[in-house]
């Protein structure tokens, strides 16, 4: 269960963040693009949560899993809950997550758990497209004007401190790995930084060098932004319990 949350909550929270941009995108095309990505992520989340709900049994549904947990029960990484700030931050966050997400799914499709393998197999097709989109924008902004170059570099620098957490192994990771269900995230680390650096270089950007990284999301210890995000996302279910459309 905790293992499913560790994967699915990333998609939910990032999907929610991107959903905030609906009608507020930098341009019509990017607005549509980012909300389309949001829709893919929320669709993937539904598949994971429907599965989680059947494992939980009782009255659990995908909605109770999505809306009725408290902040500490969400196991998403800090990176995905960071605010949209501006287009540069939105793209940098997307890019830093997409590269990781794709490699995670590529490994997860070989899971011994048939449902997780099927969701991964389905999601890969969508996430490859997200990766292409965000990588293209990194290059376009980096290789664009002085202004766009500086702003995307700043965003990368600011968000870089959240990347190391992607590769922290949790207790749930260890347990699932021993059953050939989970993915060894530590193995994804070196290829990740190699790939990210290559694209940054192509975009004439500098790969930050950091020694200290933020962590906590995977244990449910979130940044100050998370509470606000959940307050908005959970509002309807909290105000009108069991409401339905």
């Amino acid at each position, binding site marked *: 269960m905790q293992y499913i949350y560790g994967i699915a909550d990333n998609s939910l929270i990032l999907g929610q963040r991107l959903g905030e941009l609906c009608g507020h995108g930098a341009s*019509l*095309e990017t607005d*549509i*693009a980012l909300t*389309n*990505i949001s*829709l*893919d*992520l*929320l*669709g*993937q989340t*539904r*598949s994971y949560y429907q599965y989680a709900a059947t494992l939980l049994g009782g009255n659990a549904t995908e909605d109770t899993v999505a809306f009725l947990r408290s902040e500490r029960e969400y196991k998403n990484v800090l990176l995905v809950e960071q605010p949209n700030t501006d287009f540069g931050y939105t793209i940098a966050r997307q890019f830093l997550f997409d590269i990781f997400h794709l490699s995670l799914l590529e490994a997860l499709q070989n899971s011994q758990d*048939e*449902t997780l*393998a*099927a*969701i991964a*197999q*389905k*999601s890969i*097709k*969508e996430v490859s*497209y997200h990766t*292409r*989109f965000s990588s*293209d924008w990194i290059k376009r902004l980096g290789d664009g004007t002085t202004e766009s170059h500086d702003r995307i570099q700043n965003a990368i620098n600011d968000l870089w401190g959240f990347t190391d957490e992607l590769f922290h192994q949790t207790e749930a990771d260890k347990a699932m790995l021993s059953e050939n269900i989970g993915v060894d995230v530590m193995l994804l680390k070196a290829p990740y930084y190699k790939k990210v650096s290559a694209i940054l270089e192509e975009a004439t950007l500098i790969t930050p060098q950091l020694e200290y990284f933020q962590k906590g999301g995977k244990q449910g210890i979130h940044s100050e932004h998370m509470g606000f995000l959940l307050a908005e996302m959970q509002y309807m279910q909290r105000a009108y319990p069991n409401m339905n459309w």
Partner: protein
Amino acid sequence: MTTTQPEIEHQLFEILETVSDPEIPVLSIMEMGVVRSAIMKNGVVEVSITPTYSGCPAMDVIGDDIKKAFRDAGFEAKVTLILSPAWTTDWITPKGRRALEKYGIAAPLEAEADKEALLGNKKLIKCPQCGSLQTKLVSQFGSTACKALFQCEECLEPFDYFKCLK
């Protein structure tokens, strides 16, 4: 067993063909290739469908429409959503591709050509209005998850391109 050939009983086929994709009404769900099996079991029709994209909001509607179509024909139907094997644009039938083009949506190219076209490297997408290849990418993402937005430089009409998914 991951068979790409859907298992559909003959007498159910005609009923399923009357159900259309809510986003693309000219296309039946059979032509879209989203129906993976339809079997009559103890008087109940069991249908399994697979989503084009994970977040496709049309799936719930398609499920309801299938149940309604069978109810109208005097059958009870049960619909299950399956994810594996994952849907690919290859499952759109030749008839479906023609229907798309006629409706004004350019049908998906093969994977390699699709990539070139979506990166804007080559002009490969034919305008469904005038047939010109002088078309340009406006947005990699379009009105629904499965489409990208293009514009024809000859007749100036904007149009949707159904992205290749493999």
